[in-house]
Structure formats: structure tokens, C-alpha cells
């Protein structure tokens, strides 16, 4: 009897130690990756990066302005397409569809789309927006990103709108407001913070995407704001520079990765903080 208890206590200790070590391992990898990013990124970071565009390896006056501007254009355009579409679809689910079969079906579909391989979405957009035009273009890149954004915004909007108390809607309706006005002026206002957080998180998510851009917006070594033409993005530039054999390009790649990570992780943390505050 005593032996058995001893064994149980020992096994318990071993397993709990292993579980703790797992957590330490996870944190260690996070720390390692962040350290590598900061170490290489800060070293490579200087004002040239924001002033100059990409240049052949060996040039001193070489920077990331083209990629930063291109990235901003791609993300902003994707946001302009994805946010209204996701927001309105989410509004349907929460305000009209509710728990109907169709609404749940759409929720399921968007859950699947949220996890779909991004490179497949890139291939899809290539077939409909790049191949027919004959050349890579910025619009296609934005559309690919928007397709990834819609399900995220749809789900958060749906969740956030359903948190708005029913009594608010009833009160507004009792005053004679039509349903669309109740939604636009009362429900949206009540869920504003949550919706904005969802938008922030979805922007953070798509900003780090590379695969769907590889063959939609492609990349551009030069400064360009023409969305009908290939356009540079931070992520594809990182890919091109990091896989190149030139030390100075690799360095620029690290600088770009550092800037991207600052943006993505920063936005993510801010979003989480807002959600946490609301839950209290």
C-alpha cells in the first residue's frame, strides 16, 4: 500500500515537472525568436530604411520605403474591402439570422475559411484576377488579403453584436425607430469597441501574410503606388531579401522583419488588452 502511494506521488511529480518544462520550452522559443528579431533588426535599422527604395546589393542608398508604402497600400485597400463586407455579414448573423440553420451554416463556413491555407486563396485570386489581366497587380493582392479578413471580422462582429443587451434594441424600437436605425445607431454604438478590436486583430493577421501575395501582388523592387501593377509588400520583400545570398540584402530583410513584427505583435497586444478590459 505504501509502495503504491509512493509511486503515485513520484509519477505525479514527474508529470507536473514535465508539464512545467513544456511551458518553459514554449516561452524559450518565443524568447529566442524575439531576441533574434530584435538583435538583427535593431542592428540593421537606420533612417536610410525609410528614405530609400530597394537597390541592387552593394548600394549604400538602399532602403525599404517601396515596401513600406506598398504594404500600407495593400493592407489599407484590403481593409476597405474586407471590413464592410465582414461587418455587414456579421450584422446579418447576429441581428437577422440569429440561430437559424442558414446563419449557423454561414458561421461554420467562415470558421473553415478562417483556417484555409492562405496559399490556396492566393492561387484562387491568381486565377480570377491575375491570369485574365495578364500581369500581377496590387488589387489582386488586396483581394486575397480581404478574403482572409472577412471571416475574422464576420465572427467578431457577430459575437460582439450579440453581447449588446436585447433591452437596448427593444427600447429603441419602442420609440418607433426602424430596425436598420436601431442597428446602425444603437447596436453598433454599443459594440463599437469590440468591433474595432476585431478589425485591429484582423489587420494584424493579414499584415503578416506572405503566401497569398507571392503570386497576386507579387513584388516590385521599385517605388510604385500603381495598384494595377505589381506592388512591393514588406513580407514578400522579406522573403526575397532573406533568401538572397547578399549580406546587405539579408540585413534589410531582418530590418523589415523587425518592423513587421513590431507592428503585428504590437497591434495584437493592444487588441488583447482592449478585450480584457471590456470583459471586466
Amino acid at each position, binding site marked *: 500500500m505504501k509502495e503504491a502511494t509512493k509511486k503515485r506521488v513520484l509519477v505525479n511529480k514527474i508529470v507536473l515537472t514535465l508539464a*512545467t518544462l513544456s511551458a518553459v520550452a514554449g516561452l524559450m522559443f*518565443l524568447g529566442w525568436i524575439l531576441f533574434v528579431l530584435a538583435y538583427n533588426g535593431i542592428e540593421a535599422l537606420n533612417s536610410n530604411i525609410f528614405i530609400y527604395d530597394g537597390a541592387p546589393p552593394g548600394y549604400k542608398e538602399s532602403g525599404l520605403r517601396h515596401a513600406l508604402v506598398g504594404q500600407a497600400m495593400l493592407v489599407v485597400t484590403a481593409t476597405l474591402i474586407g471590413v464592410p463586407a465582414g461587418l455587414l455579414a456579421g450584422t446579418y448573423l447576429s441581428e*437577422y439570422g440569429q440561430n437559424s440553420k442558414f446563419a449557423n451554416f454561414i458561421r461554420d463556413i467562415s470558421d473553415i475559411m478562417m483556417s484555409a491555407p492562405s496559399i490556396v486563396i492566393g*492561387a484562387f485570386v491568381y486565377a480570377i484576377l491575375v491570369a485574365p489581366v495578364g500581369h500581377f497587380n496590387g488589387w489582386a493582392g488586396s483581394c486575397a488579403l480581404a478574403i482572409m479578413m472577412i471571416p475574422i471580422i464576420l465572427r467578431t462582429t457577430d459575437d460582439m453584436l450579440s453581447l449588446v443587451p436585447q433591452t437596448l434594441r427593444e427600447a429603441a424600437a419602442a420609440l418607433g425607430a*426602424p430596425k*436598420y436605425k436601431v442597428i446602425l445607431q444603437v447596436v453598433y454604438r454599443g459594440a463599437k469597441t469590440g468591433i474595432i478590436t476585431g478589425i485591429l486583430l484582423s489587420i494584424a493577421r493579414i499584415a503578416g501574410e506572405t503566401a497569398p501575395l507571392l503570386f497576386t501582388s507579387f513584388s516590385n523592387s521599385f517605388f510604385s503606388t500603381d495598384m494595377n501593377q505589381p506592388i512591393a509588400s514588406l513580407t514578400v520583400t522579406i522573403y526575397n531579401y532573406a533568401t538572397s545570398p547578399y549580406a546587405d540584402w539579408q540585413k534589410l530583410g531582418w530590418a523589415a*522583419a523587425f518592423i513587421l513584427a513590431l507592428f503585428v505583435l504590437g497591434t495584437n497586444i493592444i487588441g488583447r488588452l482592449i478585450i480584457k478590459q471590456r470583459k471586466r
Partner: protein
Amino acid sequence: MKNIADMIFKNLVTFFAISVLIILVAIFTVLFNEAKPAIDAFGFDFITNEKWAPNLEIFGGYPAIYGSIVSTFIAMIIATPIAIGIAIFLSEISPQFLKSPVGTSIELLAAIPSIIYGMWGLFYFAPILRDIFGGTGLGLLTAGIVLSIMILPFIAAITRDAMNTTPDILKESAYALGATKWDVIKNIIIPYAKAGVIGSIILALGRAIGETMAVTFVMGNVHKIPKQLTDPATSIPVTLANEFAEADTDLYYSALFYLALILFLISFVVIGLAKFYFLRKVRKAS
């Protein structure tokens, strides 16, 4: 007047809800259409054919499919126990003041863009494996390990949530009988959270199989069945990422779409299974 505005708004939001379905159907249709020439040319043998020779217009998807499956399998073997360990730590061991920071940090692993995993894998992780196993350091094993780190947070977070749904009274009853923490975890919490744990593992598998950039950096991109796990290989997403922009013949282009279609079908089935069969309960609870 009031009714017209209401009707317009309702139709507008309904249209956007339906558009999600339209996009999904469009993805399937377009992938299938573009893959059609390759499907006609190679049929289902495409899946088992080992030869990928664009210059001869011979395309077999087996090396890419093999690479996807093996790298994902390695990732699952490594990630599952560690992630469940993390979940156990977060839900049962961690002192209260550590729960939130450790949990958030682990979840941040999921927020790091995959291209950054790729860079880290190529410049820092692959050289270590090269020193240990020889070769180039690029290949299935490296890809599997990098993937495992990326999917840790998915399994850990969902498993933790599922574990947290265990009623306290069950745990307390077991403790009162003299059970150790591990007894409680093994006999009460894990059986209770089983559906969520399995669901999270399958969901992570779906993510891993479609992951592109991190793997593209460290896979080596060789269209052959590797002799060892440390040899360079390829996978479906890696092949797409590397060759899509340079596919110069119609059949080449179509063969890539065939691969994309296979990848989409696999991930669709896997994610669907995880979400609708296993994660229903967890989703409702959280």
C-alpha cells in the same frame, strides 16, 4: 418609406452573409476548373506518381503530398505532448499571477508571422540541426520542428479552455479521495476534456498542412522522396510558393492547381472534422 429602408438594409446584410458562401463555392469551382487539364491528363495516378519533371511535362504529386504528410506528422508528434503539457501547466499548476502572462506569451507564438518563423528557422535553427545530423540542415525534420512550434499555441489554448470546463466538484471529489494532481488530470480532467483536446489536435493538423512560408524556408525544395528525414524535400504549399510564378506551360500551371485543389480538400475535411465533430462543445462552453 421606413419599410423600404429597412428592406434595403436587410437585403444588403443578407447579401454579404451569402457572399461568404459564394466565395467558398467560387474557390472550389475555380481550383477545379484550373486543375481540370491536369486531372484529365494524369487522373488519380497524379497522387501516387513520384516523377515531377516540368521540362518533360510529367507531373506527379506524390513527393509534395508525401512531404506535406510527413512534415505535418513530425510536427504533431512533437507539438501534441508539449502543448498538452502547457495546457496542464496553465490550468492546473501555474500560480494565479503567472497564468495570464504565460498564457498570453504562448498565444503570441501564434501571432508571429510565419515568414519570421521561416527566417529564424533558416538562419538559426537549421544550422543547429546541420551540426547535429549533418547534411544541409534543411528538410522534413527541420520543417516538422518549426511547424510544431507554430501549432503549439493552437493546441495549448483550446486544450486549456476545454480543461477549464471540468466541473470543480468532480476534481474536488477526487482530491478528497486522496488522488494526486496527476491522478485527477489523467482520470477526471482529460476524459472530461477529451473532445476538445482531440479537436484542437486535428485543427492544428489542418493548420500545419497548409502552412507555407515557414516551411518554404527550411524544406529545401527537392522533388524527390527523401531517404532520411534530414534530407531536403518539398510539400504542397512549398511547391506552390516556389513554382507558381514560373509555371510556363498550361499543363504545368494546371498541375499546380491540382496540388492546390488537393491541399484545399484535405484542409477543408480536416478543419471541418475538428470544428464540427469535436469542437462544438468547447465553442459553446467558451
